[in-house]
């Protein structure tokens, strides 16, 4: 809701525009959903004042942290709403695209996972952790990580990793998968500080071009 949204304005007498220093007059919400701040003011009235009143009109609003926080919290949304109104109709598609890009970027962060510190609230986005763990898997010759998902396991900071990968068939798959699992576990502790308790690995494809043929190493890599 924007500061100057006429739909949000409760009806009131014409002489009620002055500063309200008593919470009593704000005791009855003028419409459903209005919120009473801890200081007794109605959220709608505080927003109205922020829109209409001169900066020094109401000493209460200037000093009350609840009122000021309410106004500051609304400022960003208000700016966006005003920008939306100012946007020309031909620009609406571009606007929608920009907004959707922002939303997609936020979604791409994935779930938030706890880092292994029981005394502090520390988290890492799944996308950031997965990127590091995929790189750890790719360090194993003959392996390319495809997907990597992480989910909290249990109540603490434990995390479970599920990974799909493509692997070459020049060596037994169980050995190679064990190597990947160890590499992922090592990286999770060393590079991230994640308490990974399990790494579930599924080989979903065959890495055909392995070992790579090179002029000086016709047999390719492998450990």
């Amino acid at each position, binding site marked *: 809701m924007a500061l100057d949204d006429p739909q949000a304005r409760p009806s009131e007498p014409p002489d009620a525009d002055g500063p309200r220093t008593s919470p009593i007059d704000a005791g009855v919400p003028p419409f459903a959903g209005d919120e009473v701040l*801890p200081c007794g003011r109605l959220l709608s009235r505080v927003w109205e004042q922020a829109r209409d009143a001169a900066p020094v009109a109401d000493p209460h609003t200037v*000093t*009350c*942290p*609840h009122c*000021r*926080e309410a106004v*500051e919290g609304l400022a*960003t*949304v208000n*700016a*966006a709403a005003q*920008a*939306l109104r*100012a*946007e020309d109709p031909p*620009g609406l598609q571009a*606007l929608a695209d*920009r*907004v959707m*890009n*922002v*939303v997609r*970027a*936020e979604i791409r*962060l994935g779930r*938030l996972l706890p*880092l*292994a*510190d029981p005394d*502090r*609230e*520390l*988290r*890492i*986005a799944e*996308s*950031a*952790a997965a*990127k*590091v763990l995929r790189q750890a898997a790719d360090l194993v010759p003959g392996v390319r990580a495809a997907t990597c998902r992480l989910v909290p396991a249990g109540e603490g900071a434990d995390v479970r990793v599920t990974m799909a990968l493509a692997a070459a068939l020049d060596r037994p798959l169980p050995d190679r998968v064990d190597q990947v699992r160890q590499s992922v576990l090592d990286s999770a502790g*060393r*590079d*991230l*500080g*994640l308490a990974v308790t399990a790494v579930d690995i599924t080989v979903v494809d065959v890495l055909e071009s392995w070992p790579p043929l090179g002029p000086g190493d016709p047999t390719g890599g492998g450990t």
Partner: protein
Amino acid sequence: MTATGTTALLGVAAEAALAVPGVAGLQPRLAHCLAAAAAPTRTDTAPHGMPPEAGIRADRAPDGSGWRIEVRCVLAEGHRALDTARNVHDRVRTAVSSHLATHGVAEPVTVAVTVTRIAARPAMV
């Protein structure tokens, strides 16, 4: 008690977080990104140009007894995420508590740190 503005706290917290080795930048919060995307003068949604405070959220505790600060940070590659996040947590809490103390306010401060990205090289956020 002197009222301490949220805006000032955001600046203090952002400065403290950015001073931690391994922090490449602060990730703007969704509300700021949406506002930037909606601004007619902007042509992209990149975080460039946003103040670092956009990566901080400061809220009063529900019972009004203290502050809760949330920091969203981008780390530089080569720094252990847990150690860096811990460092950010402790420095931000210390900085915000000190700021409140200078205003005569002794209130509990809780800090939550979220690592949103690990940049391949120091990011220009």
